[in-house]
């Protein structure tokens, strides 16, 4: 590569003449624009700038950014630039990129506001976010009642497909997680109970633990990660593609058309998954109990049956039903709130999972406390 060279002369008429030679390409050592203007005769400022490029061997964007910076300095200092010495291609490209050809008055975000203003903005944003959640829950409730009256608009096919996706297709992962959680509970309990020779009560711990809360929580968290995220991504993508706008212009409510079938599907499938998860958890406990603690199969089943009653079972189902609603609501809400870009869809999915899981844990705390107070 031929090195780039810059020679600075002063024309008889007082203009600076920049003679460019060699290759002016990205990666070659291009002189800085400041040094070009400083010139040989510092002190007296040049009023005009001209170019000679007959020895220029090659150029690319490297030359262009050098010129862009140089021209900006000239514009600032009021130096007139005579571009006629530059190759025609360079002149054309510089013309396209010149400030005269850009939009004026573009502001993005503006200045950073003072600290207190930002704190207040953040606080108001929280309040606004909370209001949006409430408004959305209200809309969903209205749509739900509309559906009970048989007036809601949604495609039955959507409901069926969502039921399949959220129900049957979630079985493998629910099996795996619930079985393992049952086994883990049994392990942890057995260490303590063995000390008293009370291994048989492992069945009680696993049975009540799984059926009353753990089955529901595990299902809720799995569905939040699996289905909540999927809902947010689906609706978010629809937002990006203007599909939701298209629905609205048809007079169809996105809440009825998109949110309702998803929520119904989860409301129906979550309790079923919960029952299944309970069963798998107890099975997991039994594997540990029978395999490692020398409890007989019948003995284990008998103990589990005597420990469990309908109340435990119904409390678990109620948990799961609530989680279903929460996962669907936050998944869909985050999707609908999504902005118009691919990264926004990713953010919506993440946010759906985080909000879903947090709300599941908070709801569990509330329900458990209420049960305590009510003596259930």
């Amino acid at each position, binding site marked *: 590569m031929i090195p780039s060279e810059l020679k600075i002369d002063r024309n008889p008429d007082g203009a600076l003449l920049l003679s460019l030679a060699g290759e002016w390409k990205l990666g070659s050592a291009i002189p800085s624009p400041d040094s070009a203007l400083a010139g040989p005769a510092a002190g007296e400022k040049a009023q005009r700038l001209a170019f000679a490029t007959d020895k220029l061997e090659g150029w690319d964007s490297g030359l262009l950014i050098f010129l862009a910076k140089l021209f900006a300095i000239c514009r600032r200092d009021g130096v007139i630039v005579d571009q006629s010495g530059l190759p025609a291609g360079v002149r054309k490209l510089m013309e396209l990129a010149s400030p005269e050809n850009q*939009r*004026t*008055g573009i*502001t993005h975000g503006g200045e950073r506001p003072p600290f207190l203003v930002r704190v207040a903005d953040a606080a108001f944003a929280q309040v606004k976010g909370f209001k949006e959640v409430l408004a959305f829950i209200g809309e969903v409730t209205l749509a739900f009642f509309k559906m009970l009256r048989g007036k809601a*608009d949604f495609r039955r096919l*959507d409901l069926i*497909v969502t039921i399949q996706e959220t129900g049957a297709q979630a079985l493998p992962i629910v099996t795996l997680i619930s079985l393992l959680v049952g086994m883990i509970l049994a392990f942890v309990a057995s260490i303590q109970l063995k000390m008293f020779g009370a291994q048989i009560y492992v069945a009680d711990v696993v049975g009540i633990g799984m059926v009353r809360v753990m089955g529901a929580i595990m299902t809720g968290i799995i569905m939040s990660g699996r289905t909540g995220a999927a809902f947010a991504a689906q609706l978010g*993508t*629809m937002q990006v*593609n*203007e*599909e939701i*706008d*298209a*629905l*609205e*212009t*048809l*007079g*169809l409510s996105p809440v009825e058309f998109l949110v309702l079938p998803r929520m119904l599907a989860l409301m129906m499938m979550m309790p079923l998954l919960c029952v299944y998860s309970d069963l798998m958890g107890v099975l997991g406990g039994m594997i540990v109990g029978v395999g490692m603690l020398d409890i007989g199969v019948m003995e284990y089943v008998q103990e589990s049956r005597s420990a469990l009653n309908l109340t435990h079972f119904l409390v678990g189902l109620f948990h799961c039903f609530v989680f279903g609603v929460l996962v669907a609501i936050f998944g869909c809400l985050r999707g609908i709130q999504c902005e118009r870009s691919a990264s926004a869809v990713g953010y919506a999915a993440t946010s759906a999972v985080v909000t879903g899981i947090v709300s599941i844990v908070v709801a569990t705390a509330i329900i458990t406390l209420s049960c305590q107070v009510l003596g259930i």
Partner: protein
Amino acid sequence: MSAPAEESRTMKEAVIEVKGLEMSYGSFVLMRDLNFTIGRGDIFIIMGGSGCGKSTLLKLLVGLKRPARGEILYDGVSYWEAEPEVQERLKRRFGILFQSGALWSSMTLAENVAMPLEQYTTLPPGQIRELVSFKLSLVGLGGFEEFYPSEISGGMKKRAGLARAMALDPDLLFFDEPSAGLDPISARLLDDLIIELSESLGTTVVVVTHELASIFAIGTNSVFLDPDVKTMTAAGDPKRLLKESPDPKVINFLTRGEGTRQR
């Protein structure tokens, strides 16, 4: 705004009147002081450089976005002040093609086009199917009924979106860059289709487009949005604007930057 353009607008009965419209995203004002009238049967072109707010104006015109200021009247009725039932009825009159096509990705093309028909008519399924096939063949997509949007090309999505917009034979059609992504022949056929809709069905068509050939071939009225002054700088028949507009920016736009009026 030249006098003859004024004249041609008063000849037609106004369908949409835009008065003192200001549009913004938050505090970022895109355009202000928009005033124009779209007459019945007009093919109304919204012109302006890329990113100046044409798609946004279209969103306002179909009631998807609230104006920051000013109002839009449809046959004298203001959309945002009307009762929800009136809004619903107005929406029924709209057919919209979004810039990205906006087909519902979980439905086949046939289901996409059938959706407005199922929503607003009580036609028997057989007849809906026939109508859907016909609308799809109008845009050259006959035979693609069972395809999903992910299985067709960008230009085909545009055309399918057009078929969906026309499903209900709406009397107001809004097209956002209908011919972007189409080959010259299809673009020409599309122009013919738009003219046919306007002439035989009396449909009012609002089109956002950059295609000069198309602007002159179909446009009967237009506005030109200038982002530098944040308002409209010209309105009227594009052919007349080319001849008479005093604004060099408008002339530049209409002559692909040649700046002269030979045409």
